[in-house]
């Protein structure tokens, strides 16, 4: 009975869980083909850190695509702002805690500038942001013209992309090789998620609303707990949670909250679903466009910081093609080109699928040319899957 219900529930949400399942299989395949190296704590930790700068871009891009636009400028904007951060620290001797907010604000402003022609003049975002792509590419080259690659000697800054949250529960006797703080955070997260789900369910029941069957609800909670537990365990086996992962989790958490729970989020989806109806419903479409592009710019700044910090330098080619990777991640994660559909968490999973492929194939020693072919095939497959299941759902 429970199994049968589970089947129907899964079918109903196959679109939501599809990529998670795909990610799961990708992990299994690479674990087998690399004799377990892929699933090792060290590799997973690296993989997550590599995902960081694409993941934050994908989060912003998700909102952009939801409101039926595109932003091509963010790759080089990210690279350029990384260079600005480096210059500010190395040549102007700005302290790190000034540089970080400064870069984020600059990113925000850049996003608003891209939004202006789109929201106010009706210029297609493709064109407006292509102009930005060229401009920021030029700006990046100008910024690094004299010095070439700028090495960043600042330890605090470099920790963002390479460092780990220190283990305050470090102990030589109890589980000496695991990162206890990560375990504790993981445990707290599991308890929080489950308590929250139970509370929501009880609340709904008190109104007499429909909720999931009890067995399926329990299965769902166990699944989430096991998944979080596994991720925590693997992470804690190698230095624990990195600052990058922490930042990405915070960004995804905040964006997920805003898009799913707040009025602003609902307005964003409404604009994507039908801009004319949204406008007539009293939603200021142009304001929403500014907000979404502004947030994208800010996240491009964050991405630039993450990347520069990871490389411990600003390079002349930083940010190249990041925008397309972010767009691919968003599409793999289930965002619809037609607008109004998609989720931030989905895009995070999309980004993970994308970097898992790179990481796994690197470990297998597959050369880069074949890697592109595989990534392209996965993107095509994901979008076809999405369209096919979408049609299924409409019948």
């Amino acid at each position, binding site marked *: 009975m429970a199994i049968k219900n589970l089947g129907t529930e899964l079918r109903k949400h196959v679109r939501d869980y599809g990529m998670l399942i795909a990610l799961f299989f990708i992990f299994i395949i690479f674990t087998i083909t690399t004799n377990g190296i892929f699933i090792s704590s060290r590799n997973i930790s690296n993989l997550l850190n590599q995902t960081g700068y694409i993941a934050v871009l994908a989060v912003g891009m998700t909102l952009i695509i939801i409101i039926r636009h595109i932003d091509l400028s963010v790759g080089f904007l990210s690279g350029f702002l990384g260079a600005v951060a480096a210059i500010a620290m190395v040549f102007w001797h700005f302290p790190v805690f000034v540089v970080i907010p400064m870069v984020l604000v600059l990113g925000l402003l850049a996003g608003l500038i891209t939004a202006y022609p789109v929201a106010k003049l009706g210029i297609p975002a493709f064109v407006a942001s292509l102009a930005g792509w060229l401009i920021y590419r030029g700006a990046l080259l100008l910024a690094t013209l004299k010095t070439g690659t700028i090495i960043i000697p600042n330890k605090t800054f470099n920790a963002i992309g390479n460092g780990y949250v220190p283990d305050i529960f470090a102990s030589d006797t109890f589980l000496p090789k695991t990162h206890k703080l990560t375990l504790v955070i993981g445990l707290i997260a599991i308890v929080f998620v489950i308590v929250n789900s139970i509370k929501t369910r009880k609340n709904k029941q008190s109104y007499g609303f429909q909720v999931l069957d009890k067995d399926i609800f329990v299965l769902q909670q166990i699944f989430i707990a096991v998944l979080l537990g596994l991720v925590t365990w693997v992470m804690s086996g190698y230095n624990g949670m990195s600052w990058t992962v922490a930042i990405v989790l915070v960004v995804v958490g905040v964006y997920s909250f805003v898009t799913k729970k707040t009025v602003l989020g609902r307005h964003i989806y409404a604009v994507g679903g039908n801009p004319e109806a949204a406008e007539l419903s009293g939603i*200021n479409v142009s304001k929403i466009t500014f907000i979404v592009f502004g947030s994208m710019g800010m996240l491009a700044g964050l991405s630039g910081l993450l990347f520069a910090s990871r490389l411990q330098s600003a390079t002349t080619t930083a940010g190249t093609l990041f925008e397309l990777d972010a767009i691919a991640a968003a599409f793999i994660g289930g965002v619809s080109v037609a607008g109004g559909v998609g989720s931030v968490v989905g895009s995070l999973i999309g980004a993970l699928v994308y970097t898992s492929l790179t990481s796994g194939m690197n470990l297998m020693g597959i050369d880069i040319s074949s890697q592109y072919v595989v990534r392209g095939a996965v993107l095509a497959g994901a979008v076809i899957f999405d369209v096919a299941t979408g049609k299924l759902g409409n019948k």
Partner: protein
Amino acid sequence: MEKRKILEMRGITKTFPGVKALDDVTFDVTEGEIHCLVGENGAGKSTLMKVLSGVYPYGEYSGDIVFDGSVRKFRQVRDSERTGIAVIYQELALIPELSIYENIFLGHEIQNRGVVNWNETIKQAGEMLRKVGLEINPDIKIKDLGVGKQQLVEIAKALSRDVKLLVLDEPTAALNEDDSENLLELLKGLKTQGVTSVMITHKLKEVIHIADRVTVLRDGQTICTLDAHNGEVSESVLIKNMVGRSIDNVYPGRESTPSNEVVFEVSDWSAVDRILGHKVLDSVSLHVKKGEIVGLAGLMGAGRTEFARSIFGNPDHYLIDGHLVVKGEECLFGHPEDAIEKGVAYVSEDRKRNGLILIQDIKENITIANLRELKKGFVIDTNAEIIQAQGYRKALDIKTPSLEQKVNKLSGGNQQKVSLAKWLFVKPHVLILDEPTRGIDVGAKYEIYTLMNDLVAQGMSIIMISSELPEILGMSDRIYVVSEGKITGELPIGEATQENIMQLATN
């Protein structure tokens, strides 16, 4: 001498989900005549022509089409075009960025193994233009022509395909008087050259001027076919046949009467379209009392929707001049947001295009215009949302298995109810309804009328824009008639008849 019938449509029935658009319609056209097809909006004229042209393919309707001597089963528009039927729609099918000659031969280019012979094309295009009385260079791009000339190019395009039957769907709706006159003369001229035409029109004067025979449709049925040469056709006969239906029982009676308090007043309201540069509204003045239903009658394109939208935050960015007073307060709404704030709501005529968010579910659509009310701290209280939506679902009897149903899976009537629920949740003082019952069945119509009665009884004021005269007469306390952007008459319900409204709407 009995002339040959070029077209016979027999027993044509076409149903849309929930609506019978055509019900056993019979329609025939004699070779070499000009046949006018008249009827109210929604009578089924355009649907009939779409059946003829293959837009609704064989199998989607029942009945027979006999054209040029044999039974036809058109599966697509190309099929009907190949047999010599050309339909010219209100929205012209020309490509603005291409030249006249490219447009005329689009789809049947003069070619030799895929290479277009442009010289021959230009020469023949010139001949076609002369045939329609247009002495201009075929090099000119379509976008540089006025609507009247575009219409002629469209006809030239049809002629270039050896057309046997030319169908024009309201060809003069967008034309000024001179251009209309021109077009009608052209049709007469083509008649002498043997071209048969069917013309759909609302302008009865044109019918009398040009038609050999007239067929009247009403509610998807053929009412009569009249012969102009027997003196059967006059404006009053046509109107009677077009609208003659009893409206008893279709409209629920209303107990409440409007108060004397004016809650909404517009004076000298003019609007100019910035892009086209023409005046869409010209010194419109009207007022609505508390608890009153005011009908805004007129033909499509008369400026009724433009009026509503120019009031409701002006999303088309018209240049506006005039005064608007809502509940004693002078207002000018810069965005629909402001209008909602002041208690004015507008239920748009096209619920699919700009009323609903089709990919979202019922409850999200109902609450989208007033999420403020559901805010608890930073978040939307989704439980309160369900309760509100549930309330409207019950009150309006929205038929759905669940509030999580996507709106695009609902029937037209239920979609319209969701659209209404959304605006009732805003709790407006003044509700502007634009074609509130378009495309929905009689049962749902009755429910919406009953709801309107309840709302005015509670003190709401309603402005109802409608092309259906019986609806205007059945529901309004007072009626304004709009024609070409102007108010051409104000009628208390006691003095209004379908005939005098039609007269005001067409002058």
